[in-house]
């Protein structure tokens, strides 16, 4: 067994060397919020955080995640309280069918950590690694901007 640290908790996956991390997250750990669509790194729906960096889990081997902090969409909410970016996606209807949404929210988290106060154009470039087949892009951009506002408000309140 290989021990991974996923969403703050140690978990075990099999030792097979020939599997992608996305596969292990979904099949061994049941974390099906990580979606696999293209399986070629293009669509971004399998995006997770590896030590805080956004990464396509379909292009990583499961064993390569050993010793790293993995965050999936399941790790964002605090109990029943949605993460501010999740809340913003709900409020701005930043999705239609919802398939790509987990990847978008994870990308948004990494993007806003680097650029907490972006313009709409910067959001569009920052989120360019995630494809939404429904074409909800204008709403997604609004959701990310709203998420940024919420995170800034939380940070201000904490000061």
């Amino acid at each position: 067994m290989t021990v991974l640290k996923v969403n703050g908790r140690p978990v075990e996956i099999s030792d097979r060397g020939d599997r992608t991390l996305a596969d292990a997250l979904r099949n061994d750990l049941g974390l099906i919020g990580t979606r696999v669509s293209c399986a070629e790194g293009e669509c971004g729906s399998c995006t997770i955080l590896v030590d805080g960096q956004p990464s396509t889990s379909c292009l990583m081997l499961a064993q390569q995640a050993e010793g790293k902090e993995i965050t999936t969409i399941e790790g964002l909410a605090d109990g029943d309280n949605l993460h501010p970016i999740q809340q913003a996606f709900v409020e701005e209807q930043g999705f239609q069918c919802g398939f790509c949404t987990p990847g978008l929210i994870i990308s948004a988290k990494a993007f806003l950590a680097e650029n907490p106060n972006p313009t709409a154009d910067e959001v569009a470039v920052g989120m360019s690694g995630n494809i939404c087949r429904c074409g909800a892009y204008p709403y997604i951009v609004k959701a990310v901007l709203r998420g940024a506002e919420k995170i800034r408000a939380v940070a201000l309140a904490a000061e």
Partner: protein
Amino acid sequence: MLAEHGPDAMIWAGGTDMTLHWQREKVSPTVCVDIRDVSQLDFIEVGNDAIRIGAMTALATLERAAGRHHILKMLSDITKLMCTPQTRTLATVGGNMCNASPAADLSPAFVALDATAVIFGRNGTREVTAYDFFVGVNRTAVAQDEILQEVTIPLPSDGEIHGSYRRIDRTVVDIALVNGSAAVTVGIDGVISKVGLGLGAVAPIILNAPDASAALEGTSLADVTRDKLAEVAAIAARHAKPITDVRASAGYRQDMVEVMLRRALEDAITNHGGKLR
């Protein structure tokens, strides 16, 4: 390990090309040597005479190095065209070189900048120029039991170097239909002492064009005209041997590589403060 296991063993760096080759059964290694966490190969060093970039430097790391040197700014701008934010954290500079796609984005810049590939093997390190590094589609000068250690970009001691990279692409994630890069060194006397050119996606390897470079070398920066650069780009474009594929026709590539090189040369001259007439 590579030597011990022979041709069935392959290097796994960021895996962004490897995963696809492996899924499509273009490669079927029995042993993968995962060099991802080899931190000694993950560095960017700016010296007086050279910039050294470790093979395991992620594209995302190179992207963030823009403020450290104007040549790193040029390379950073290239990485922004590559892959997606969440694959740039995985994809490495060495992997981009070693995958040796004729359309790879960093390779023409490394050829234009006259970079050196430092290759590590059982008998120590050896160096080959970026131009000689590429041998064919997905084929490089790195032998089965060797790895690429770093890429070194020489900096002039008696002048300044500026460069530029231009490409035509269809969408953000897509690879270049055709691309071109230029690097121009101007001596303290204001005379162009060295011109490097790199032509991508117009042959199985990245091309250079010594005759075109020579046509510009020796010219005073103040005397460079748009017409002169167009002439140099036209000479360089004669080296192209493009093919037609799903992305573009050979004719389109032939015409556009000249345009890319002309623009890259114009950028490089402008970056030197040259006024183009």
